[in-house]
């Protein structure tokens, strides 16, 4: 129990009655996917099972699952993988989709997130997929619309469908059963997440999900991109500043792009970063010839990872993208409360 949850419990039992708790998601419509924190291990297992079921279906059968249903994609930030895979996932299930982006809508005229959400709801959207540069935007949208909201990345906070697709990729590539999980599924598996942890919603999502399934997460990066506060993400997480040491222990290495758009004036010595943290063929051959290489994209070839490693035999980067489509079908079905 977190301190906050403890205080909440104490307050409810006794004097105080302050609002909310960290894990309280009762304020959100069932089927919302805002943060991996809100998912129980059973929820994760359910999503994996649904993913497998949808994958086994024929295309024609799959195209009937969400027929007549409407989902809106609301994108305040650019995206290739996430937007396309959500859209293709929804369409492959027969749903009607509409895309609203900040560049071509009344958002440019100053319409608030709340009003944009209420407008989409009034137009018949039954769920909203949101990408937004502000942490917490998905929670806000879910609260004010009462609709199931799928968080497709909110600021530096969370990208829960990415964590789920990373999980499925890991399970498949390690030869495990990808249809279910429990608290021990990833016992003995060490995942090294490396690079710009501070600005990464993927790092937060993976680091908060994988340890709950038994994995050990090693965060690796310089203090400017990996503050000690990262340990507050939960248990089963440690910080290792030396990439070679982290790599030597890892079964999986997740490389992250340096998010220049979020550096906020901070000047990073890229040459030094490359020297210390780039995943290149020499490092891989010398230290981790069997490690599974992952990256949520976009990749900056030659910076955090070299082209030959990204394209190499140990890389699961393209598979991650494919699993994105599979996982996003399942979370859409879950959001709309359909039994498939």
């Amino acid at each position: 129990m977190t301190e906050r949850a403890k205080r909440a419990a104490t307050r409810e039992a006794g004097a105080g009655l302050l609002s909310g708790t960290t894990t309280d998601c009762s304020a959100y419509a069932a089927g919302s996917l805002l943060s991996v924190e809100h998912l129980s291990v059973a929820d994760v297992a359910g999503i994996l099972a649904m993913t497998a079921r949808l994958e086994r279906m024929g295309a024609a059968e799959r195209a009937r699952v969400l027929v007549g249903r409407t989902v809106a994609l609301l994108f305040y930030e650019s995206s290739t993988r996430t937007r396309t895979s959500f859209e293709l996932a929804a369409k492959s299930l027969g749903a009607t989709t509409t895309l609203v982006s900040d560049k071509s809508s009344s958002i440019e005229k100053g319409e608030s997130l709340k009003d944009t959400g209420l407008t989409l709801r009034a137009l018949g959207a039954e769920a909203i997929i949101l990408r937004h540069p502000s942490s917490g935007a998905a929670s806000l949208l879910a609260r004010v619309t009462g609709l199931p909201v799928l968080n497709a990345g909110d600021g530096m906070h969370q990208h829960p469908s990415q964590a789920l697709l990373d999980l499925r990729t890991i399970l498949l590539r390690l030869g495990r059963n990808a249809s279910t999980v429990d608290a021990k599924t990833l016992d003995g598996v060490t995942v090294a997440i490396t690079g710009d942890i501070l600005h990464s919603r993927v790092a937060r999502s993976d680091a908060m999900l994988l340890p709950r399934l038994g994995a050990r997460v090693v965060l690796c990066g310089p203090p400017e991109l990996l503050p000690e506060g990262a340990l507050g993400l939960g248990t089963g997480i440690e910080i290792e500043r030396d990439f070679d040491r982290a790599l030597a222990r890892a079964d999986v290495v997740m490389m992250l792009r340096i998010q220049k758009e979020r550096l906020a004036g901070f000047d990073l010595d890229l040459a030094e970063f490359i020297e210390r943290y780039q995943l290149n063929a020499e490092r891989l051959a010398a230290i981790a010839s069997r490690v599974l290489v992952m990256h949520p994209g976009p990749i900056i070839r030659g910076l955090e990872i070299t082209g030959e490693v990204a394209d190499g035999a140990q890389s699961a980067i393209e598979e991650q993208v494919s699993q994105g489509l599979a996982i996003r079908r399942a979370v859409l079905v879950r959001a709309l409360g359909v039994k498939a």
Partner: protein
Amino acid sequence: MSEMLILNGRLVDPASGTDAPRDVLVRDGRIAAIEVPGGLASVANSLPVEDQIDATGMVVAPGLIDIHVHLREPGQTHKETIATGTAAAAAGGFTTVVAMPNTIPVNDSVKSLRWMLDAARGPVVKLLAMPAATFGSLGSEITDFHELVKAGAVGFTDDGKPVLEDEVMRAALVAAAGLGVPVSQHAEDTRLTSGCCMNAGRVAFRLGLRGMPEEAEARIVERDLRLLREIERVERVRPHLHVQHVSTARALHEIRRAKAAGLHVTCEAAPHHFTLTDEEIGDYDTNAKMNPPLRAEADRHALIEGLLDGTVDCIATDHAPHASHEKEVEFERAANGITGLETALGLALRVLHREHGMPLSRVIALMSAHPASVIRLKERGTLRVGSYADVVVFDPAAEWSFAAGASRSKSRNTPFDGAAMVGRVRATICEGRIVYRASS
């Protein structure tokens, strides 16, 4: 001649060291007599019943004084007006409030100060003001301290932002020292807090929000204390620095050391900072967003310790009303601040008196005599005979839940909706007039 009697109450007046059953006679806006119960029976017999308050079981204390409120008038009257903000003050037991200058336009001239303090604004309680320390609160050129003090200024501040430049702050401290008023500093090195919207640390990391480091507060406090020392040595005057809403253990530590070294520094703490931590933000609750932000548990404890040992001079609310549409937005875009006038006494009594054993008279002192002394306010903050009849009558044992919907403020932005309070105001009297009376 108008008279009022407050009978059978427990009079707690820290300034005169009184804590005993007393009857109080108010005449023409002043405290006219204080007697043991029954001592004013002859007056009682001749005074109509409606002019007598039965304070049996109640505490009768000096009206509370809040030296840090935002009343939003002129310029942002959709959030609050002087009339609604002071009505909230009266409901919270306050009889004097000091308005901050970050109105639109900024209160930085004699003209704007006079407009604000004009009776036409309809203040329900005594309204004072701290005008801006610099023109437009832009931090470059100090305002006309001399003329502003003549027009009623009780101090100077650019609250909401710091006076960042060393030379400007030095000039402000020197000018204020000559006039016997404090410079109130919002201690935040904004060069370290760009884009930040909460406390730095584990919670900020988890939420993916940029955090303000404690250094941002400490650095300005340390700089200002250094200026105090230099000015005392070089200029041979003794400036008064008042540090607003101290929120970190580190800044408080510096203030404690400076006090021990004999510098004239005072500071205030806000109820939310000694009641809540950054965990309260939960799932991006913008009603837990203010500046300075809610800090870590260690900081909260340090504040309580500072309140207990006297390092913290007074409690001030930083009452900062905002409309719902200014809070119902993305966390990092949401306005800073929460309302505080109606929850201050209930939280102070709950947290400081009940949970941490602070004597009732000390809680009252922190909210009346001490803030009066910070701004050198005479004849208020005490119930001595001859003082203004600024009185709060409250039930010290009452336990209740605050309901934001019932607030007198125009705004509802508080994390304390439904929160437990100890001690409930029954009546507030300002200069002999009843300005608030509980309905039941």
